[in-house]
């Protein structure tokens, strides 16, 4: 770990440095230490080390608080009552902390988003990396970057006012304006750039010698793409899917705006639901007293969310590494 190395380095230790390069009158090179350079090197090292340390410290702090508050929560609520309970009422006279409705809400959003975002993102990646002409690529790649740069709050209002308000209610005005479908669809659009860019890198990394080999056997373009290039890039593509799914699971603003606030154990996408993230927002901006069970439940849900997305990211990293070893 570079951060600890630099901070523990004693000042007496010599720092490697370029020769000062000065020459004296008779042409001999001056090899003595240039103090100004060596000081500058030390300062840069310490600053960079501090950056690394700050990142680690922040992460540890967040995890620590999550664990601490969750621990208090689980002293009152059994871990299995939490994980397997089907009723989520965090306030009121008879609270119930079964997290499944929130998990179901998150799953519903994630499934809808994945159904939209993964195929579209992969399709875009295949098109850009295999088919698009150079001018088409010049337009498409920045377009995807623009899509990636749209703030999620804008996506959220787009989901609420257009997808739900215009399209869904245009089809059937009796449907609830806050529903899982509109939020899920827009989360799906939001993850397209991520799927597309990571998958495109994976597809591009497939050596052209493989596709040449396939062409030389009399394969058509579509056969080369679908039966050689995509399979060869598969672990990278799967990694992009997992990253995108983990992004959808963690997405907050869109669902907070458009999915509703009803912890609802359902698979019907036209109902109002609540996700884990949506719940955390609701509690965090509400006026719940610190130290109450309701307040602590926020951290328990946060911890669960963190564990899920961390697991997904580790899986993606592992898959990506496997993919890199392949050729």
């Amino acid at each position, binding site marked *: 770990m570079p951060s600890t190395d630099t901070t523990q380095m004693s000042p007496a230790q010599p720092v490697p440095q370029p020769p000062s390069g000065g020459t004296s009158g008779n042409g001999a090179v001056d090899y003595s230490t240039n103090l100004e350079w060596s000081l500058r090197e030390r300062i840069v090292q310490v600053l960079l080390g501090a950056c690394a340390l700050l990142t680690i410290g922040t992460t540890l702090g967040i995890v620590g608080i999550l664990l601490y508050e969750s621990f208090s929560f689980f002293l009152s609520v059994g871990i299995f009552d939490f994980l397997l309970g089907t009723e989520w009422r965090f306030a009121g006279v008879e609270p119930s902390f079964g997290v499944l409705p929130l998990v179901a809400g998150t799953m519903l959003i994630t499934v809808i988003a994945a159904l939209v975002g993964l195929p579209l993102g992969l399709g875009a990646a295949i098109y850009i990396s295999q088919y698009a002409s150079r001018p088409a690529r010049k337009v498409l790649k920045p377009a995807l970057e623009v899509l990636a740069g749209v703030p999620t709050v804008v996506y959220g209002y787009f989901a609420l006012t257009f997808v739900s308000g215009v399209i869904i209610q245009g089809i059937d005005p009796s449907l609830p304006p806050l529903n899982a479908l509109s939020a899920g669809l827009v989360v799906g659009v939001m993850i397209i750039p991520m799927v597309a860019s990571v998958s495109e890198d994976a597809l591009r990394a497939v050596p052209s010698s493989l596709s040449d080999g*396939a062409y*030389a056997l009399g394969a058509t373009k579509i056969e080369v793409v679908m039966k*050689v290039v995509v399979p060869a890039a598969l672990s990278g593509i799967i990694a992009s899917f997992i990253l995108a799914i983990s992004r959808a699971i963690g997405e907050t603003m869109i669902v907070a705006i458009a999915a509703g606030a009803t912890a609802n154990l359902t698979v019907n996408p036209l109902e109002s639901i609540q996700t884990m993230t949506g719940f955390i927002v609701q509690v965090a901006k509400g006026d719940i007293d610190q130290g109450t069970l309701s307040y602590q439940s926020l951290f328990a849900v946060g911890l669960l969310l963190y564990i899920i997305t961390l697991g997904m990211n580790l899986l993606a990293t592992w898959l990506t590494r496997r993919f890199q070893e392949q050729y």
Partner: protein
Amino acid sequence: MADAKADPQRKPSSSEASSPQTSSPAASNSTASGTGNAPTRKAVPEAPRTLTPGPRQGPQPKTKIEVKDLQFWYGDTHAIKGVTMNIPAHQVTAFIGPSGCGKSTVLRCLNRMNELIPDTRMEGTIRVDEQDIYADEADPVMVRRRIGMVFQKPNPFPKTIYKNITWGAKINGYQGDYEALVEESLRKAALWEEVKDRLHTSAYNLSGGQQQRLCIARALAVKPDILLMDEPASALDPIATAKLEETIVELKQDYTIVIVTHNMQQATRVSDRTAFFYVGELVEMGDTEMLFTRPSDEKTDAYISGRFG
């Protein structure tokens, strides 16, 4: 298949080999182009060439591929400046010349692989069995099915040995017995004995030489009648190279083979005819023995005696 060293048939030195199998001098003249090399064909020593199996060729080898006024451009680079040559059936034809002279480009024109590179242009005609492979109605996919190719670096698919071989046959709609096809192709490529017990393991576990022979087997499984090889031994060690060369010589009974090589000893060992290219032009083409012993062009002479390249 034994190692090259253990094979009593093999005599690696090029000097003792000579070439009686194009038995009629007219044969070589009719297929030669470039600067005239016809008059130099007189006293050919009659020692049999050791690597070539049996007296296969008829008196006059039939022309398999006919290249006429081939020109090729990569963008503005005029890479091939008018090449005309005839490649005989059931023989091994070697392309030699310094790197960058256009050997690979000509080779890749022969199975229409070059048109996969964007921003390129070709002129001239190429006929295979008297059919224009660049005719409007000719489909490059069909052309490539008939004309197999083996590349400089072994490029098996990241699949099992078995699937590497069946892949091409499958996309071509092969209806027969796949097991038999795999065995037949691997036998022809002299790889069967080494891999028959691990057909369903990854092709990436094979050595470089085995991978290259797998690529040959993969090409053969599509049942082409021409095999193009672009420096197929350049990534291999000497023993694997010797084995590959043996395989090539055996294959010419059933296939017409064109091989690009930067190794002149290799050309003399495997080929019946040799074409020498220099900066986008065919300088000289003729019987391999003739070309290496009595080249008619001084550039060829300079190249084969190692004065440039």
